[in-house]
């Protein structure tokens, strides 16, 4: 099979998942703003409208990947060998059920009620979007130019996907074989299941064509960023965020194709945008809470850090709604929407794979007898973080600080504490690493921190010049 043919088949798989995801996520992402949002928008002369088509595409892809993984698991559970046709059939069934069950009201299907703000010269927004598109194109060509080769792809993400595809099963061996001690048996499975599903469309394990998943996720991330900020802030803010995220070369590089980082960045953007929508919207809008739940599930099924992020997001949301009209049952809805899917996913994964030791961490360091070792280890880790920041990221860090000084709060402000808190917990994790903490930091810190950057641009670009 030629590469072009294999790519076309993966594209069919992604398009099928996105179409089914669009149908299923339609009740959550379609519909215009609530009455309160319309009044607030008119009062503040701000652009609040229905989710943009770009955001709807991003939500559709995320929902579609989850649906496709569920369809694959259903086929495996039934002992049926997955194929592109069978997966499409199940996806079509889900889509038709969703389309029949949900008929949008005439009013809610109306397009934007308030014209979004331009926010600056049109040529500037167009140029920034052009930069984002060019950077995305370079990343796409780079990642499709060779079979995926990242260490984490070979050791577990791709390896598990290949095993699932080739055996048409989720073998117990993946969770129990001591020879696979390095394969992170505790990790979530959405990336391996997505790769295995797309391989079923190709009809073989074609690791060059399967890399198409990554440009698709990167595109959805940029669409979600630009669409959300255009809706909530201005067109220029959206274009700026898309350009900044697309130029994040530590994240969008061929070396990350095959890992979970790029889909994970998409999940963080969706969760953050849903959280801002929830904080800003009418508390009686259940579709926003459902969006939170969907994003939470997407985060948790991609990486363990995803569960941490949604829990921190829930804490930020809780801090924000204290003292507002969203206290009580309605306020709790948002928190439950964030926490429950992550918890439910963990329980399902636990049932599937049993109790797994986390070889990355030495939890005995939390025992009282070893507490005195922790400060020195934490200082070592923090020192390494500072050194990396000083030698490799000083200019962007200073630029961000200056930007915060010359701008005023935006809609993304309540989420700001989530990002340093997430990095703090990374420091805690490295502190209790089973390996040399410095070795672990050098191997993973840049990569896992950079996955936060696209979501962070939501906070950054929602701010306005004083």
């Amino acid at each position, binding site marked *: 099979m030629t590469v072009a043919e294999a790519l076309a088949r993966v594209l069919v798989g992604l398009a099928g998942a996105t179409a089914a995801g669009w149908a299923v996520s339609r009740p959550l992402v379609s519909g215009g703003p609530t009455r309160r949002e319309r009044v607030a928008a008119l009062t503040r002369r701000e652009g609040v409208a229905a989710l943009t088509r770009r955001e709807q595409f991003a939500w559709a892809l995320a929902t579609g990947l989850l649906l496709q993984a569920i369809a694959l698991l259903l086929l495996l559970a039934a002992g049926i060998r997955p194929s592109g046709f069978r997966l499409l059939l199940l996806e079509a069934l889900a889509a038709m059920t969703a389309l029949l069950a949900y008929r949008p009201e005439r009013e809610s299907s109306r397009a934007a009620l308030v014209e979004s703000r331009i926010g600056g010269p049109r040529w500037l927004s167009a140029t920034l979007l052009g930069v984002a598109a060019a950077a995305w194109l370079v990343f796409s060509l780079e990642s499709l130019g*060779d*079979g995926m*080769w990242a*260490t984490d792809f*070979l*050791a577990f993400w*791709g*390896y598990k996907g*290949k*095993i699932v595809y*080739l*055996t048409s099963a989720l*073998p117990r*061996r993946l969770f129990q*074989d*001591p*020879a*696979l001690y*390095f*394969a992170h048996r505790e990790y979530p499975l959405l990336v391996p299941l997505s790769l295995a599903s797309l391989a079923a469309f190709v009809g073989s394990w074609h690791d060059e064509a399967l890399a198409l998943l990554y440009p698709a996720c990167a595109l959805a991330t940029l669409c979600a960023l630009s669409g959300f900020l255009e809706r909530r802030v201005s067109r220029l803010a959206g274009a700026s965020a898309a350009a900044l995220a697309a130029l994040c070369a530590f994240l969008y590089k*061929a070396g990350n194709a095959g890992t979970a980082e790029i889909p994970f960045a998409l999940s963080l953007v969706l969760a953050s945008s849903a959280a801002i929508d929830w904080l800003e919207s009418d508390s009686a809008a259940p579709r926003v809470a459902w969006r939170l739940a969907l994003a939470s599930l997407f985060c948790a099924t991609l990486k363990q850090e995803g569960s941490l992020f949604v829990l921190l997001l829930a804490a930020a949301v809780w801090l924000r709604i204290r003292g507002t009209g969203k206290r009580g049952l309605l306020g709790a809805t948002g928190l439950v929407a964030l926490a429950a899917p992550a918890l439910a996913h963990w329980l399902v994964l636990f049932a599937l794979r049993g109790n797994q030791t986390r070889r990355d961490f030495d939890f005995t360091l939390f025992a009282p007898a070893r507490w005195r070792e922790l400060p020195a280890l934490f200082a070592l880790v923090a020192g390494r973080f500072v050194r990396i920041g000083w030698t490799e990221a000083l200019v962007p860090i200073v630029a961000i600080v200056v930007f915060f000084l010359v701008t005023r709060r935006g809609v993304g402000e309540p989420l700001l504490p989530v990002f340093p808190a997430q990095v703090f917990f990374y420091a805690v994790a490295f502190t209790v690493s089973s390996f040399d903490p410095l070795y672990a930091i050098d191997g993973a810190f840049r990569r896992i921190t950079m996955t936060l950057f696209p979501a962070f641009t939501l906070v950054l670009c929602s701010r306005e010049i004083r």
Partner: protein
Amino acid sequence: MGFWFDAPFLAFLDEVDRRVPKTTDVTVAVLVPRSPDLYRFQANYRLAPRRVVEERWKDEADVIATYGTEAGRGPGGEAIPGGQLWVRPRR
């Protein structure tokens, strides 16, 4: 890019892949240099869905493939690019 650390290792794995049945009930012990880890990861990935194990589990193996190590000097193996291959009679 996947074999930047040792380009000839690809030919070795391809030959093992060609000679050993592609079934899940076959265990292949691949004896490779200890570092970088990529030797082991590539062997696992390339030879899937077979069960690939390291030297410490070689007693469980149906096939032993050695590459670039002293362990490849034993008698009776078949020479393959960059190494040796021993096939144990099925028990």
